[in-house]
């Protein structure tokens, strides 16, 4: 498959690229028949889910794969040289100089024991014959270009002193320090909050406009693709299955997988007329059919008594002085939060990292004791319910399905472990329960004997759902439960959760930063900022009439998966105070809430918003 060529000569021309890895003495083909090109000033998106080969492709272009266990064939022509024919020293002269790369995890992609200034300057010094002082000056200039505030005073800081967004800026500064002709960005915003993502995307576009470099943008997020890419390449399982201009791909997708990918992309603002949560359409990859699930009755039982009633909930973490252990400051992680959850209801708590949404989830399940406030679980005060009974009523699902299953426990045992701990059923019945639950969450009964590493991320999260269900809880707190999953997996797990809600009348507290998913599945939404709920109300009210400045800011940063509407979103400015750390004598202001419409409450914005 060849791409439509632009008039200008391509900067990078990849033809018939194939990559194989050697594992246990066997060569396994992971990328096949890759053909694409990038011209100067152009952005090409490579889209696909984990394991589709998109990252492998970029690593092959950069020759960063281990040479002994990798076989790369084909041609990678860059400025009339075949990169695949270059030896390591010649390749070193290309990397970071003519072609640069930035990566997904800004938290781990910087050397923790080198100052960030030194890491940027290093990229200059290995390619340019400059003195140490000159490299420092150039690095400082780059830090200014990527808008790192107070660059001069932060030059000698270490990566752990920077936030995720700022670290990604450092990465970009190092990558672009030698003014490369091509930038490969491998999921550069996936680990970032939406507002930070918007800022980083804008930064890349701004620098591209300045230097005229070509960009290869690797992502799984069609919203980001619509935002940045001129042309798009869709990969599935090592093959390019579709390619064309981004507008074409979005308007008339040819392949089922592309359509699945597109329709699975949660779109903000598509729920306007729907009164209650809606499952995602189901795709059959074999036949290529998409089935919209019929609209079902609402699961919310509004007349039943509330499952959770929370008033004035607060949690502070104390910061103590080094020697005398006096309290010098407090992190106001959760401040005066009030919530209510009814049977069959989904309440979403949204906000960015550090806003206190996860702490709230942990307070609700009793994992942390609260400092003040009241939590009523099914009419009983949470603190007074014995731990084993509490575990029956409320369960939790966590974000990382890889880390939240014990690798040495068979999944069947993992699922029934809560029963064993609380001695609820005879041991002989456990296997049967595990098998039934595995089938209930869409897996097979015989998988109970396997270990977690034998499952994919989506399957593991299903196992975590099964484990939460084994106690037949009334409430499940799902903390970013689908955030680490690929879109198609994500929609399946969400559909599963909605089925279970319908069947069992579960109440969900859905903690997420993904506004589009939240819009799809919630009855009610609470927006948190620096530990406080700044706005809360029915889903439709929050999305159609966001009133608090922070809610507006959050919603405006969400990428719109529609290339025609590109550029309508603008990144919100960097906010200065981003930490709920307060001095020990800090008195929290008394907040007033206004009722905008029925059940839609907005905190009166403080002076920082005017």
């Amino acid at each position, binding site marked *: 498959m060849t791409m439509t060529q632009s008039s200008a000569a391509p900067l990078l021309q990849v033809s018939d690229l194939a990559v194989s890895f050697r594992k246990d003495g066997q060569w396994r083909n992971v990328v096949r028949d890759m053909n694409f090109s990038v011209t100067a000033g152009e952005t090409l998106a490579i889209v696909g889910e984990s394991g589709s080969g998109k990252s492998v492709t970029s690593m092959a272009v*950069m020759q*960063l794969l281990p040479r002994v266990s990798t076989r790369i064939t084909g041609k990678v022509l860059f400025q009339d040289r075949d990169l695949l024919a270059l030896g*390591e*020293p010649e390749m*070193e*002269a*290309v*990397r*970071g*100089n003519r072609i*640069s*790369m930035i*990566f997904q*995890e800004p938290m*781990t*992609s*910087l*050397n*923790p*024991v*080198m100052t960030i200034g030194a890491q940027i300057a*290093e*990229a200059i010094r*290995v*390619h340019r014959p400059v003195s140490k002082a000159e490299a420092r000056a150039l690095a400082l200039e780059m830090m200014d270009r990527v808008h790192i505030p107070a660059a001069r005073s932060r030059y000698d800081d*270490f990566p*752990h002193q920077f936030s995720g967004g700022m670290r990604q800026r450092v*990465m970009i500064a*190092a*990558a672009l320090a030698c003014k490369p002709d091509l930038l490969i960005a491998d999921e550069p915003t996936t680990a970032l909050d939406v507002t930070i993502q918007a800022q980083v995307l804008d930064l890349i576009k701004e620098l591209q406009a300045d230097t005229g470099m070509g960009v290869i943008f690797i992502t799984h997020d069609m919203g980001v693709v619509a935002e940045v890419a001129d042309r798009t390449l869709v990969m599935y399982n090592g093959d390019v299955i579709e390619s064309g201009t981004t507008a074409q791909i979005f308007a008339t997708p040819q392949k089922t997988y592309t359509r699945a990918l597109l329709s699975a992309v949660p779109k903000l603002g598509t729920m306007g007329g729907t009164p209650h949560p809606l499952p995602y359409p189901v795709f059959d990859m074999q036949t290529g059919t998409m089935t919209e699930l019929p609209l079902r009755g609402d699961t919310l039982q509004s007349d039943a008594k509330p499952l959770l009633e929370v008033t004035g909930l607060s949690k502070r973490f104390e910061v103590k002085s*080094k*020697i005398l252990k006096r309290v010098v400051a407090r992190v106001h992680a959760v401040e005066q939060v009030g919530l209510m959850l009814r049977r069959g209801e989904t309440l979403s708590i949204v906000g960015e990292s550090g806003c206190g949404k996860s702490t709230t989830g942990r307070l609700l399940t009793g994992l942390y004791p609260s400092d003040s406030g009241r939590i009523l679980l099914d009419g009983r005060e949470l603190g007074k319910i014995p731990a084993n009974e509490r575990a029956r009523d409320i369960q939790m699902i966590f974000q990382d399905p890889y880390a939240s299953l014990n690798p040495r426990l068979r999944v069947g045992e993992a699922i029934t472990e809560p029963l064993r701990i609380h001695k609820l059923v005879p041991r002989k019945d456990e296997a049967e329960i595990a098998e039934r639950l595995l089938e209930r969450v869409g897996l097979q009964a015989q998988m109970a004997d396997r270990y977690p590493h034998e499952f994919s991320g989506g399957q593991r999260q299903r196992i975590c759902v099964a484990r939460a269900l084994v106690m037949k809880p009334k409430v499940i707190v799902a903390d970013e439960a689908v955030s680490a999953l690929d879109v198609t997996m994500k929609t399946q797990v969400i559909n599963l959760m909605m089925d279970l809600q319908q069947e069992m009348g579960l109440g969900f507290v859905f903690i997420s930063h993904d506004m589009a998913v939240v819009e799809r599945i919630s009855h009610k939404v609470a927006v948190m900022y620096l530990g406080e709920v700044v706005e809360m109300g029915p889903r439709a009210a929050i999305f159609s009439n966001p009133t608090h400045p922070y809610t507006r800011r959050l919603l405006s940063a969400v990428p719109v998966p529609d290339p025609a509407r590109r550029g309508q979103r603008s990144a919100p400015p960097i906010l200065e105070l981003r930490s709920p750390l307060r001095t020990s004598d800090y008195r929290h202001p008394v907040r007033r809430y206004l009722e905008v419409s029925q059940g839609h409450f907005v905190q009166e914005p403080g002076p920082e918003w005017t």
Partner: protein
Amino acid sequence: MGWFLRRIAQSIVMLWVVISLVFLSIHFVPGDPVELLLAQDGATPDPAMVEVVRGQLGLDRPLHEQYVKKLGDLLRFDLGKSIVDESSVGKEVARRLPRTLELIAAAGLLSLLIGLPAGVLAALRPASLFSRMANLASGTAQSIPVFVIGTLFVITFAQLLGWLPAGGFVAFERDPAKHLLLLIMPATTIAVGLSAIVFRITRASMLDVLPLDFIRTARAKGVPRRRVILQHALRNALMPVITVFALQLGGLLAGTVLVETVFNWPGLSGMLVSGVNARDYPVVTGVIVVVAAFYIGLNLLVDILYGLTDPRVRK
């Protein structure tokens, strides 16, 4: 800076705890040192005589008075006198300590020179023949007792080949060449096991660091391979190596007994052994306090090195 002062304060407390423990344990161990001292020929000593000697040594005072006096003495760096021959413990320690330290330093240096590069190379090519052979060798080296290695060395290099003297000690000032010649075998004997440990930790730690994201970043920046390995990988991998290495060195201070015995090296551990045998507890306390102080000082040094290598520790 606060971090640094706190660590020093911690070290002083640790030293005080060690001194107190040694003081107490020696006093509660059965067997009266004075009786033992006077019972030279197996006969029960005269009780009156025992009392007199106890009085001379200050052992008839209440325990807490003895404890306070001991702490006071130690604060003035006075380690007391041997019960057996009334020689100054401090002087004897000062004479022997440098010899043991020299032995340990030589052994440590040697094992770093062998273990570090071998560990790095083995981690770069984990499946290579070199890596596998080095693994095998280090496993073997660690499992052979040090006195066996020492004895084998003596048999091979002194008796069969005649390249090196079998053992003994000559002061550096008297005959530098001979001194160093005598140092080779005991130092190498210790270095065999130590370099095996350094090798293993370096290799394992490098294997942990090499697949990390920031190594990939460095390579993507076009940083030459050599610099990626030394500046980015090794510096991050060094911390566990520093910890284990320092603990090993500290342990050697009192643990060179066997080596010092095999090679007739008149170091600190010989003094400790004879002190224990004679229940000469000023000697025992003196040696243990000095060893503990060194051990604690070494740990302090490690923490400072940690702070220098890893900025995250300094908080």
